[in-house]
């Protein structure tokens, strides 16, 4: 058995998994705050990433640009909620989804218009920090680390700060939350801001690997979506694990086929197979692997 091959595929699967996980995290953020899946999340992250690229191109040092982008994205997320989504608080769910699709195409189109569709290199801050090994690149290591840091930060925020508690309350039971003095509308906006900020980090982690163009997130959003559901849509930790599992699962199909020596699915259908597995899991565990089982009130 070719252990090196297996190991390589495993690390590459984990590295891809980290990408999915970071997008899944952003989706979980917005879901926690608004109970919606934001289909425009990926494009918002892509747009943030272009902002970072622009700042770096203007000569800002990486980390300055990094934190500026997070701040701008946060403000942008809040603005989108206050200017656009606010008007749809009482609209049917599907109307909101159409608004998300609208946002998706707007961001995609405008990014191409401003920055052109030419592929851009996005720098990685980790290249100088971690050593390059054959098995895993320095950036991939950095991504995993970053995700763990965000995850811890979010956990602490939601668990131990009054604001975090208020946000959760506003999402789960807006009426009661309002009665105890939580400003529900601003909590929603805050949720959008946080999701946009997490998305911005995700984008900046993804871009050095897949390179920056307006379709940066086109393929990744589905994986992020699947990861988030697999892990349990309301659980940030579960979403991250879901991402890693999906990444491993995908490459696992290739490894197994290579070891057995037959190609049934191959690279062409590995995504399909991975999704079927995810859906099968969800059929038997509808709240995801690590999600809380929600009891519906009749």
């Amino acid at each position: 058995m070719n252990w090196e091959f297996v190991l390589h595929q495993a690390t590459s699967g984990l590295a891809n998994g980290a990408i999915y996980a970071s997008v899944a995290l952003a989706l979980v953020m917005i879901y926690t705050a608004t109970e919606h899946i934001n289909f425009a999340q990926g494009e918002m992250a892509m747009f943030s990433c272009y902002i970072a690229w622009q700042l770096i191109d203007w000569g800002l040092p990486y980390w300055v640009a990094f934190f500026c982008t997070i701040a701008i994205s946060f403000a942008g997320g809040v603005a989108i909620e206050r200017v656009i989504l606010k008007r749809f608080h009482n609209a049917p769910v599907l109307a909101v989804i159409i608004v998300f699709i609208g946002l998706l195409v707007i961001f995609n189109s405008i990014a191409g218009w401003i920055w052109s569709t030419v592929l851009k290199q996005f720098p990685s801050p980790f290249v100088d920090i971690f050593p390059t090994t054959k098995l895993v690149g320095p950036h991939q290591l950095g991504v995993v680390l970053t995700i763990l840091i965000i995850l811890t930060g979010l956990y602490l925020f939601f668990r131990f700060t009054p604001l975090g508690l208020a946000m959760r309350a506003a999402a789960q039971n807006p009426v009661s939350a309002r009665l105890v003095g939580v400003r529900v509308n601003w909590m929603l906006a805050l949720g959008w801001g946080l999701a946009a900020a997490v998305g911005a980090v995700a984008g900046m982690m993804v871009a050095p690997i897949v390179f920056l163009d307006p379709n940066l997130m086109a393929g990744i959003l589905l994986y992020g979506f699947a990861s988030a559901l697999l892990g349990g849509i309301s659980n940030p930790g579960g979403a991250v694990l879901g991402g890693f599992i999906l990444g491993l699962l995908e490459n696992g199909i290739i490894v197994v086929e290579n070891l057995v020596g037959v190609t049934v699915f191959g690279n062409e259908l590995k995504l399909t197979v991975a999704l079927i597995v995810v859906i099968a899991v969800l059929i038997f565990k509808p709240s995801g692997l690590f999600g809380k089982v929600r009891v519906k009130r009749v």
Partner: protein
Amino acid sequence: MSISRRKLMQGTAAAGVAATVVGPAIAKGKYDEGATDKEIKIGHTNPYSGPASAYGTIGKAIDAYFKKINEEGGINGRKVTFISQDDGYSPPKTVEVIRQLVEQEKVLLVFNTLGTPPNTAIQKYMNAKKVPQLFVATGASKWGMPKEFPWTMGWQPDYNTEGQIYAKYLLANKKDAKIAVLYQNDDYGKDYLEGFHKGLGDAGKKQIVSEVSYEVTDPTVDSQVIQMHSKGADAFFNITTPKFAAQAIKKAGEIGWKPMHFLNNVSASVSTVLKPAGFEFSQGILTAAYLKDPTDKQWFGHQGYLEWVEWMKKYHASGNIQDSFNVYGYTVAQTMTHVLKACGDDLTRANIMKQAASIKGLALPMMLPGIKINTSATDFYPIQSVQLQRFKGETWELFGDILAAESA
């Protein structure tokens, strides 16, 4: 002497008569729908929206080129009206907007419609309507069939031929190579793959140890690169679009895989593919080219390049100077202009096809030195020659002869 003089006299007299009789009564030329004394209407489709919108800049470049032509007085005194429609790379939409161009806008011809599936969708219609479908923007090898489709003509060297050229070079220059191929799982990837197989021949095909595909929706091709490496391949044909090409080059470099590396022309841009992937990983990569790479500094002093830059700045300022699609649009528009000029005052569709099929040795400023456009009544493949180049330092180095593979 006297005979020739008499002939000359007769000639002038006839011309004079013709001028006086025909001149004021009828327009100065022969026309089909879409052309007049003042105007030539050209239709075009491009994906300005959707995932393929990166190609949209070709349409904008062509539009910008015709703007320049019009400012300089037009083609034989006629202004070009260039009507470009968005089809989002969706064949049903292409059919719809092409019918709009032909039946509502009544264009004289349709030019540089983009993509193999969209062009396949409209080919039958164009030929039934007898409207030229000229210089289509796809590398499939099926556009040069004057017998079946006398109204359709390709332009660029086809992927099939390019694949064959790499295969032949590989067989000649590397003994007992173990070959790996990475290809995009669609018509573009399959065209290259087919040509490559053909070039390798039955014996050569046995040398392929790994043949893996990816989907455009895949986030990365890392896993595929590892698969090819693990099979011990030492030659690699990289059939990928820019994003995946850069990923594959980078990943191969990172895991220390150094095969003889053929990169398809689609992704041979220095600053949008090789630079992001890392110059250190790009050394020695081979590709075949027919256009000048606008990001390759070896051309920066050349007259043709300088003219192109000046045009970009003046007419296509919103376009990106690094984008080789802008070179493509510029050059294909020049080809179209050449044909329309050659038509003179006979702007009938039949004459346009006739002129398009009689281009002889046309060299254009942004094509590589020595590459020429040639067509004939039986040869509907305008550009058939390419030259191999190897990446060295931060630039492509041309080597070997101009290779003219036999298409069709």
